[in-house]
């Protein structure tokens, strides 16, 4: 276990970077994903079209290719935000497509009578979404959203090859330096990811209990 006792700070620095990536791209994915989901169920055809195109584009493109386009495409046209923001953008916009589909499933799960009731009370579309549909939809989508964020946690490891010193970057460094401790290094890094994923699962579980629809 020399790798941990010699350089414990590198291990934690790596996972801190992973966490920052997860939080930043997760927040971006939630915001964009919700907007796209609303667009996909909106009564305006153009909005529905834009939402559909977004999901088709970002869900069907491999994340690695999205990152490559961001890294090599944007600087070509003079846009360069730095590695962290660029990789966060790629991962956030990619994950947003999955968030949107999960939320859309939740929205579709709301009985149409509820929307009709809200509309007949005179609530406009946005208010119907805000007050009636989305609060209920978010309850239904906690389990699938948790899966999306768990997938995102693991996807952040791609950043190790794009200038970010995350946990996977640290793992490769450790492997190079401590040839005799390969298995311990793999297990140690895997453990860190498992902890993050478990926290997400636990959080999802708490939300589910708290928001459970009383029937």
């Amino acid at each position, binding site marked *: 276990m020399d790798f941990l006792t010699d350089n414990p700070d590198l291990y934690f620095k790596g996972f801190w970077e992973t966490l920052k990536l997860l939080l930043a791209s997760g927040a971006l994915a939630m915001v964009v994903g919700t907007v796209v989901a609303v667009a996909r169920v909106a009564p305006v*055809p153009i909005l*529905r*079209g834009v939402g*559909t*195109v977004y999901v*088709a*584009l970002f869900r*069907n*493109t*491999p994340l690695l*290719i999205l990152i*490559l*386009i961001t890294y*090599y*495409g944007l*600087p070509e046209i003079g846009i*360069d935000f*730095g*590695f962290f923001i660029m990789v966060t953008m790629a991962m956030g916009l990619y994950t947003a497509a999955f968030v949107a589909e999960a939320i859309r499933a939740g929205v579709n799960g709301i009985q149409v009578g509820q929307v009709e009731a809200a509309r007949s009370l005179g609530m406009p579309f946005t208010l119907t979404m805000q007050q009636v549909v989305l609060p209920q939809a978010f309850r239904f989508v906690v389990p699938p959203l948790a899966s999306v964020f768990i997938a995102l946690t693991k996807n952040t490891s791609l950043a*190790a*090859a*794009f*200038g*970010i*010193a995350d946990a996977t*970057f640290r793992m*490769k*460094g450790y*492997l*190079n*330096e*401590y*040839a*005799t401790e*390969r298995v311990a290094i793999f297990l140690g890094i895997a453990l860190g990811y498992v902890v993050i994923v478990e926290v997400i699962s636990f959080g999802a579980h708490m939300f589910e209990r708290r928001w459970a629809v009383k029937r």
Partner: protein
Amino acid sequence: MQLKRTTWAAVAAAAMLVLTACGDAGEDGDGDDTGAKGDYEVVADPDFEAGSRMAEIAEAGTVKIGVKYDQPGIGFKAAGADAPTGIDPEMGKVIAGQLGIEAEDIEWVETISANREPFLQEGTVDFVLASYSITDDRRKIVGQAGPYYVTGQSLLVAADDDSIKGPEDLEGKKVCSVTGSTSIATVEKEYGATPAGFDTYSECVDQLKNGSVDAVTTDGAILLGYAAEAPDEIKVVGEPFSEERYGVGYSLESPELCEFLNTTLEEALSGDAFQTAFDKTLGESGNEAPATPTLDPCP
């Protein structure tokens, strides 16, 4: 059906993006085939002690050598090329020749930094020549003969950058190298640089050219090669720092290989085999061959 048409347009657009991205990522150096036949001596009927690993390999007529495929000048295989090029594959040919094996009978195996030890331990390869720095930790689990090449890392910076003159100017600067390499660990730990890891050196050089990183670090000879390609944009600064001693990896199950490798390397270094290998690869951009290293004695 209007929606449907938009969907297809989007799919087509995505496909085009994908194709462009692939085109960009594929250009990594040039794949000049160095038809190596006859560069190094191939012993006609080598004589080894019966039962030794050398005799087994010579008997089989083929040898499996692990090299890097992504380090220009050291070990590099271009997409579509038949065999890897670089100082490591060249030295592999020298060793194979001493076992009576022609260059074209060598089975090249791509090894990355993380799988060099497992490949040797499991017998996936007979030798590893993959910018394989000799360290005490590695010598606990695999054999390392050599060094045949001693090098130090250098810094590559933008041509108009006067703020970095050597490693001590790296504090807080973003320095790029290959993820997991020793060079990137050194600049972070000893000089306080912010590490930025990529998969290949050419990606690092691209990031340096577009200003996303402040410097690129790795073996000085590799950097000189890149600087020679684009002297208006990038330059190598300062003296080499750190010391990497490249050795030949072999399995500890066959300790007799060490004496054989040391003899072979000794002859290559004192004769002209190493010089030939160097001139064809790292020396191409006008680098001088390094001083002849002293081999470590076998354990």
